[in-house]
């Protein structure tokens, strides 16, 4: 087969199609969430996000005026008004006075209602009910209609969750947790990885083996002992039990083994000659680290930073243990969970809240994806 001047095999085409399919499968939920969060809340309940661009069909009812609203005209008596709520963009398609046969009459059609004259309902919701006799009804007549609402997109949902539902504050809290909890372990791990590779000290290999061993310690196992330890130590210094410092330290501790392991592998793959050349040039370990190893390790540092940041950003468990649920400490995931309980039916709030919690990971990933790919292969292939 020839495409754009190049010959391609069936296998290549199949591969590309498969890739496209995978991309669609992976991105579809995100797109759905984004679209849902931008829709009007009534439409969100009425139909799925994939029909967001077409009109929504809603069935509803309105009530006419009562006998008090009638006016006398040349032909008799008339009650007029509008069935739709004020400012509604909906258009009525069918209407009826019988709930079991809601599409009995088209909009604009005139039909007898209640044996007391004829009613006309227009697409814009206005109706006119005329009768030669005076109306005597004390309650308005129910008129059922099927209306079509054009798609509405709005940022109202976001405004609401950010302001009223505490997501805005939770967003800031999460950032307060995630940024230091990313930077601190990277700094420590980079120094540590350098020492493990380029400084010789007794017990180096044993220490490193212990660090690697810590990789497999389950987080859940150590959470409570850690919290108690932190509280006991904190109590002696008069630090409150649940604070940002605590969660920074916890995330640092949980992130360090992987960070040291990844960075050591990368830093260890730097050419030995380079380090020795710097030594001959008169560089101390600190110089070698800051001037040589750090700049050359940017891909590895960035890829670990992404890992750690995403993990901390999406974390719920550690935050629940180490932070309170007070307004100034609750993180996004926790706040979303609260919303799920209290406002579970309000999809517009849940979708927009969820998307706010996703937006930062998405941005981070797209901004740093070239480091992500390079960093993962770092060390295996000489670049």
């Amino acid at each position: 087969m020839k495409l754009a001047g190049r010959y391609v095999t069936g296998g290549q085409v199949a591969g590309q199609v498969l890739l496209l399919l995978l991309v669609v499968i992976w991105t579809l939920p995100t797109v759905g969430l984004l679209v849902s969060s931008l829709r009007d809340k009534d439409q969100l309940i009425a139909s799925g996000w994939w029909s967001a661009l077409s009109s929504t069909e809603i069935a509803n009812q309105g009530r006419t005026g009562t006998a008090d609203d009638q006016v006398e005209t040349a032909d008799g008596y008339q009650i007029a008004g509008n069935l739709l709520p004020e400012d509604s963009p909906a258009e009525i398609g069918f209407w009826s006075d019988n709930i079991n046969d809601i599409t009995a009459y088209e909009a604009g059609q005139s039909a007898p209602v209640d044996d007391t004259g004829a009613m006309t309902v227009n697409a814009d919701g206005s109706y006119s009910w005329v009768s030669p006799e005076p109306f005597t009804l004390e309650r308005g007549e129910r008129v059922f209609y099927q209306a079509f609402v054009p798609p509405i997109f709005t940022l109202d949902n976001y405004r609401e969750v950010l302001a009223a539902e505490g997501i805005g504050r939770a967003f800031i809290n999460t950032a307060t947790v995630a940024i230091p909890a990313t930077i601190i372990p990277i700094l420590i791990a980079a120094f540590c990885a350098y020492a493990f590779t380029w400084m010789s000290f007794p017990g180096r290999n044993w220490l490193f083996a212990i660090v690697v061993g810590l990789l497999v310690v389950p987080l859940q196992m150590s959470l409570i002992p850690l919290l108690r330890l932190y509280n006991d130590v904190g109590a002696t210094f008069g630090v409150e039990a649940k604070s940002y410092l605590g969660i920074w330290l916890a995330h640092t501790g949980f992130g360090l083994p992987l960070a040291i392991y990844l960075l050591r592998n990368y830093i260890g793959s730097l050419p030995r000659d380079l380090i020795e050349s710097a030594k001959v040039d008169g560089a101390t370990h600190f110089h070698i680290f800051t001037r040589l190893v750090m700049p050359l390790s940017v891909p590895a540092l960035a890829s670990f930073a992404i890992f750690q940041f995403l993990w901390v950003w999406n974390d719920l468990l550690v935050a629940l243990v180490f932070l309170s649920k007070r307004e100034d400490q609750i993180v996004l995931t926790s706040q979303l969970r609260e919303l799920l309980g209290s406002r579970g039916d309000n999809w517009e709030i849940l979708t927009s809240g969820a998307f706010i919690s996703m937006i930062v990971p998405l941005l981070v990933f797209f901004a740093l994806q070239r480091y992500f790919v390079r960093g993962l292969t770092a060390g295996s292939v000489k670049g």
Partner: protein
Amino acid sequence: MATVKLSDVKKAFGSVEIIKGVDLDIHDNEFVVFVGPSGCGKSTLLRLIAGLEDISSGELTIDGKRMNDTPPAERGIAMVFQSYALYPHMTVYENMAFGLKLAKFDKKVIDDKVREAARILQLEHLLQRKPKELSGGQRQRVAIGRSIVRDPKVFLFDEPLSNLDAALRVQMRIEIAKLHSDLDATMIYVTHDQVEAMTLADKIVVLQAGIVVQVGSPLELYYHPQNKFVAGFIGSPKMNFVPVEVAATDGTGVTVTLPGGNTLLVPVDSRGVAPGARLTLGVRPEHMSETGQGDATMPVQCVVVERLGGDTYGYVQSDGVELMTVQTDGTSRMKPGDRLDVGMRGATCHLFGDDDQALPLLERNDLADIGKSGILAGAPGPAPAVH
């Protein structure tokens, strides 16, 4: 400008001894080359001098000062690595200025020094480039430039040319030789390539398994190898070794019986050699005659012929002898299958005992001392033996 002295220097990694006691005197302005096969410890020895490895025992002095525990930067040395070891994220200029910046030199001084080194090495137009934008030869020059700016007492080169292609290697070899005569610096150079060793060195140090086997000028090693290892290592193609039996000894040398029955008088010290003893005769390919000229001949059969244009190498075989090489000029008509009598002169032959030590030649070849008088200092000499 400095002298380097090693006294009984040893280096062990764990229980494995790599350098087994080296004594060496390197004079001011001398160009010393360490040669030897892979794993002989030549690079380790250089790294001991550089301070990149700790000396297990013994003493290293540079300019008379003990340097065993001095960090590399304070030894007054500069090192050029095989892989160039340029800092990939810095420009050529920054690469060269790195050491000076660390030493807190004045900006103006750094600039002067870097530009001077760039001028010497013709790197001026490349100063703002990154190493990855340079060719192999240019990278090598930058690596040398980085060592020049530090104004070291001793330059150390660790196989600096082995990553270059053949043509560039010849060119850089000449440049390093020129640099040596321009800078008047002591240089220590490690290579496994005996051609580099022969052409560059004032003094060659041949190492084998962590021991210095022989130290001498290139032609001294060529004409007076002390043992079979040096004889085989220096010279290209390799020296031929023929098992022989002693027929007679007297004051003029040892007469040996060649395979095929002819006898040859080799002018070596015959003390301690008895008739009937088995020795090894060493004769270089360029000292063998295809046409049978010389003091004695040996019947052989030609197996393979390599024609290089200017020279022809014939690989020949005889009963009980390893494949031998005969070098003749390019007009030779020798072809595989030919039976011929190769000739050799007793004066150009060597004899080695059971212990592989050479029996000393009675007469010293005057070419052996030519390097010491400084005639060839630093410049590639005529080196008749090297092809």
